[in-house]
């Protein structure tokens, strides 16, 4: 059962020449063909290119080359440009768009020898928390196909949960990696803003967007994140600091690690969710960690802050879709204004249009100071709260989501209710902090996530703490029935 093996186990079999990358790739392609119809997680399958890349990886292995990801398959979120392959961003606007170059993330993973199987479904332009805004239809949660997988990287999360690939890429602007990771029972990490290049990653909100990964375990996520990270001169916000060997830091003992508990996060928390968090905390204290109480007094303002800053940046970024140079164009435009307005009106879905209009409103004359500038000030207060917390704690532990996966269609009518799903995840994006979600138990048979947030560039500490938790527990080994 190749799909139940970790990346490390697959790499060992490849290194020992027990199996070829072509065989592994065929196995996962067959699983996608057999199971994806139930999930709608993969929207473009690149079988031919995958087999060619696998054969190339096998040649590199035969020549004696070794690598953590050499010959290992993955699925890319369809927000990353892939040269010669449709890159839709989940939108009608880009339904016919064939990217003319690779995103840096794609290029780096290719160079490491990872094999792309296809592209994952997602909320349109990464705007959504349930994967219901995709032009290609909702993704279903493999734990219960009537439930959402979370979003916006819902296809990437569901694909790893159903073991359609050993790992996948995602992006996280307000929780789009951590929330779906939690709701599908997989491990997901969003690194520090600037750690992974945004070049070739279709922009939503540029001061918040960051790429990351989904995998079954923290150890697998470490191997993938390491390959993706690093300085890129083509992204002006890329940070030029060396990438540590994340895998090498996984086994460090946690004795004396100071875990910050946020009182604000526990207020109003559902009893069963609180019990899971307390059980996780007991695991950590058993491993020698200490707890300290910390406070983020401005955190309740994080969701309204985000829903000013993110739409403002999105309204600016998405102005590039004008029906002229690429993307959807309406039929028989009367004049240039009609071309713009109808191409955008018909090419974008309802949630994207709502966010563009929210952003246009908060940036418009007379409202800029009251909304946008105000939100930028509150963003600083939230960031300062985190700084004060990290002066006392090495990392912060809290839930990833308020509830397990909800029903498809349950929250589509009220955007604000949908936005409040991200209440625990948005703070890390506003402050640019690394954060991850790992499986920590079940409510009503559905997986729940534990979130770890660290100071800037503390990815290694997060992965270490997550790995130690996963050595002491087996929540991450559970998979959905019928898929594992």
């Amino acid at each position: 059962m190749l799909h139940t093996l970790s990346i490390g186990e697959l790499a060992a079999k490849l290194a020992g020449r027990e199996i070829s990358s072509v065989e592994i790739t065929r196995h996962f392609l067959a699983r996608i063909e057999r199971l994806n119809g139930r999930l709608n997680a993969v929207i473009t399958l690149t079988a031919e290119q995958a087999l060619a890349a696998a054969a190339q990886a096998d040649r590199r292995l035969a020549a004696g080359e070794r690598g953590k990801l050499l010959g290992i398959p993955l699925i890319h979120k369809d927000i990353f440009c892939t040269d010669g392959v449709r890159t839709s961003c989940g939108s009608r606007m880009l339904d016919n768009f064939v990217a003319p170059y690779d995103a840096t993330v794609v290029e780096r993973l290719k160079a490491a020898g990872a094999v792309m199987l296809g592209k994952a479904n997602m909320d349109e332009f990464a705007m959504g928390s349930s994967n219901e805004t995709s032009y290609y239809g909702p993704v279903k949660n493999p734990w219960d196909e009537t439930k959402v997988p979370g979003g916006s990287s819902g296809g990437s999360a569901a694909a790893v949960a159903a073991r359609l690939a050993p790992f996948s890429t995602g992006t996280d602007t307000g929780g789009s990696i951590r929330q779906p990771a939690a709701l599908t029972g997989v491990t997901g990490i969003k690194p520090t803003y600037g750690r992974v290049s945004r070049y070739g990653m279709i922009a939503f909100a540029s001061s918040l967007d960051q790429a990351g990964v989904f995998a079954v375990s923290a150890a697998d996520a470490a191997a993938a994140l390491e390959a993706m990270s690093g300085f890129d001169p083509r992204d002006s916000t890329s940070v030029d600091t060396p990438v540590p060997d994340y895998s090498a830091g996984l086994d460090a003992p946690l004795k004396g690690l100071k875990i910050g508990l946020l009182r604000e996060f526990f207020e109003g928390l559902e009893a069963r969710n609180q019990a899971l968090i307390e059980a996780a905390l007991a695991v950590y204290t058993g491993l020698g960690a200490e707890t300290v109480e910390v406070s983020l007094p401005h955190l309740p303002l994080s969701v309204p802050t985000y829903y000013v800053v993110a739409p403002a940046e999105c309204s600016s970024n998405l102005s590039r879709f004008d029906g002229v140079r690429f993307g959807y164009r309406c039929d028989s435009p009367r004049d240039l204004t009609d071309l713009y307005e109808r191409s955008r009106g018909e090419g974008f879905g309802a949630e994207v249009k709502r966010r563009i209009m929210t952003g246009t409103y908060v940036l418009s004359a007379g409202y800029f100071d009251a909304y946008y500038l105000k939100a930028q000030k509150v963003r600083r207060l939230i960031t300062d709260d985190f700084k004060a917390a990290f002066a006392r704690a090495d990392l912060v532990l809290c839930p990833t989501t308020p509830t397990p996966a909800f029903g498809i269609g349950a929250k589509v009518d009220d955007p604000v209710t949908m936005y409040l799903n991200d209440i625990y995840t948005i703070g890390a994006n506003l402050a640019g902090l690394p954060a991850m979600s790992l499986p920590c138990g079940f409510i009503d048979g559905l997986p729940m996530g534990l979130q770890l947030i660290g100071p800037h560039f503390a990815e290694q500490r997060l992965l270490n703490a997550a790995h130690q938790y996963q050595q002491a527990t087996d929540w991450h080994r559970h998979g959905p029935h019928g898929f594992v």
Partner: protein
Amino acid sequence: MTLKRQDVEKIAHLARLSISDTEMPAYVSSLSRIVEFVDALSRAPTEGVEPMAHPLDGQRQRLRPDAVTEADHHDKYQRNAPSVQAGLYLVPRVIE
């Protein structure tokens, strides 16, 4: 603050988005909900707080030498264009 239909029509035009008459009432109500929701910010005291545009302190815009680093790929790029002729992007007549 509640938005009126005319407000949303103005925003839609500024954003160059055609919104049909049947879609309009749903946008008026959902955008009003969102604006009411983000109005919570107005109650936060922020006197003397420097607005934050970027999550990393001390991040500076890098400069690069003004040198050609990319080959000309316009044929490849224009394969994604809805309408081109002789290497030019076509749009409806702007000047009569």
